[in-house]
């Protein structure tokens, strides 16, 4: 299965190794940054939604308990 690379074995293996490593690092870096940004954005949007929500009675459930 493995091809006989002869005297160029080191040349070919190091080229493929370096290239595939760089591509893998690029994909990994893109994925890590995407996850970080998405997580921070979700947190910020969640925070804004809470801040915007109109303020009602502090705890409606507690009030209902007291009435009964």
């Amino acid at each position, binding site marked *: 299965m493995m*091809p*006989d690379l002869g005297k*160029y074995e080191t*040349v*070919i293996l*190091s080229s493929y190794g370096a*290239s595939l490593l760089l591509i893998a690092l690029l994909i990994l870096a893109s994925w890590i940054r995407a996850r970080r940004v998405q997580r921070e954005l979700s947190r*910020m*949007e969640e925070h804004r939604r809470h801040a915007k929500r109109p303020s009602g009675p502090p705890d409606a459930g507690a009030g209902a308990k007291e009435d009964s």
Partner: protein
Amino acid sequence: MSIWEYANPKKFMETTARLMPWLVALTAVTLIPGLVWGYFFSPEAENFGTSVKIIYLHVPSAFIAINAWIMMLVASLIWLVRRHHVSVLAAKAAAPIGLTMTLIALITGAIWGQPMWGTWWAWDPRLTSFLVLFIFYLGYMALWEAIENPDTAADLTSILCIVGSVFALLSRYATLFWPQGLHQDASLSLDKAEHVADVYHRPLVLSIIGFVLLFITLVLYRTRTEVRARRLKALQARERMA
């Protein structure tokens, strides 16, 4: 329907979310077989022996290195003329991919050059213009990081991109302008007599298609991140002002 609809970040995010799984699958079914075909099943070349197997990485990465900059140029011009944020964010997203591809082309070229030319490096027109292109990629990315205001950063990086285009084109056509260098002519040509034999040509074309699809997939993926990062910055600025 017009292409400018995709300048709307919401439309861009919706469309690319649907496209991404297809692009990932297409990239995998072209890039992996292209490289496996080239590495395992392509024969030795008469002049270069088994070292010919490097072309399945070297040629596609060099192709992307040059064309990524051309894509960034088009996106930057769209930003300068029409002020569409998604276009300049796509240019910003493409730069690290172009940088990586330029580095791969330089490294594989140097590794191959050592046994073939007897040197890792020569101040050959194509090699030198590629090195300058690599420096332009670094400069472009550094400029984005150095400027706080995103619109000012977009303007200045777009201008840098226009200047750098000279070197991107020079990298492509250097062997025509200065034929005295070590680097041979293009491996692929529309003229059948000029390009590599079919037995190398077919896996090479498949590898190039794989690299192009990898580039498109990564640019869209990274642009989606940049669109989100821009919204995050805007929300953080609003929060600070409130």
